[in-house]
């Protein structure tokens, strides 16, 4: 009885002395966009798609490169801007179009532990766009966190696409 008790106490002390870094494995925050045709059906975009944005110093930076045949894709979201401005460019052999998309949001600092990197979660409050290749964009999930399993935006394209 006494021996068993000592073993139990040793194991308990052993585990009490252990520490670990407990950060989530999925620790990136992205928006997920699904692509729909003019009739509301999920479809694969045949054009080559690029997405740009403008940095603090005024230079453009590519945040999505040469996507072809995609029906869903992810985009980064600004940590602290109240509104992100994205430029979608669609290129085909005989066609090129550019749309500007503005995403309004609220930003929330998110903390896991002092061992885990600082991150931000977001609440999407509005989206608007020009209407060249894109017909409309709808917010389908307004909270953006580590969960990228469901789409935040449904992007509807004009019938030509």
């Amino acid at each position: 009885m006494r021996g068993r008790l000592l073993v139990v106490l040793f194991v308990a002390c052993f585990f009490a002395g252990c520490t670990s870094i407990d950060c989530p494995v999925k620790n990136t925050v992205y928006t997920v966009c699904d692509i729909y045709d003019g009739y509301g059906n999920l479809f694969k975009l045949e054009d080559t798609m690029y997405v740009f944005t403008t940095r603090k110093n005024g230079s453009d930076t590519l945040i999505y490169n040469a996507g072809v045949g995609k029906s869903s894709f992810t985009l980064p979201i600004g940590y602290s801007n109240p509104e992100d401005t994205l430029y979608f460019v669609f290129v085909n052999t005989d066609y090129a179009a550019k749309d500007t998309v503005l995403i309004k949001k609220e930003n929330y600092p998110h903390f896991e532990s002092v061992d885990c990197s600082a991150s931000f979660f977001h609440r999407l409050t509005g989206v608007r766009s020009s209407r060249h290749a894109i017909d409309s964009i709808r917010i389908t999930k307004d909270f953006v966190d580590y969960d990228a399993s469901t789409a935040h935006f449904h992007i509807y394209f004009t019938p030509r696409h």
Partner: protein
Amino acid sequence: MMPRQHISTSTLRLAISLLLVMVSAVSLQAQKLKLFRLEKDSIPMLRGFQVSFDLFGFGQLQLSDYGQYEGAFRLNLHDQWFPIVEVGYGKANHDHDEVTGISYKTSAPYFRVGVDFNLLKKKHSSNRLYGGFRYAFTSYKVDLWRQDFPDPVWQWDTGFGVFNESCSQHWLEAVVGVDAKVFGPFHLGWSVRYKRRLAHQDGVMGKTWYVPGYGTWGDTRLGGSFNVMIDI
């Protein structure tokens, strides 16, 4: 807003825990109940008091960036039952983590109330083996910040932090411990504790790190204490 644990979830968890305890208590067989019955002998019911101080939390505070000062007052009922109140003051000052750059600061009092039971057959010996439980609560404020850093895509400087964020936590502890008489009224002892959160309010940041009296959240549910005790 960020997803939070609903209070109904915590209440439900508490209700289920209490129900399980009640069901377990009812299902105890008569001979097991004997263990907890006061022994009939000439020893008086009220045997005295004991105060104790935890050296483990104190050492933790000296050697790391968090820890606590803690004392306890324990009543001795017939050397069998020991109602106890533990009161402490927990502190954390984690300044500029060398990897993440995050700083975390909090300090607040906490308390635990509960009861210990002497598990030894010879109840009236000067050494004891305890089993018991505690209910604990703390209300604390957190300062949490990081130096401005550039957004990796847009490059705008981004602030990260909250100050004086109000948080609170209720939790339960199961305790196993020993108490050995050294000389006169002085005893030394230690305890191992298994902790479960009942309800918690972590503020707008989503989570907290060091909770006064509970320790750091996430790495382990086990804790311990090393006590110096004085019989009164």
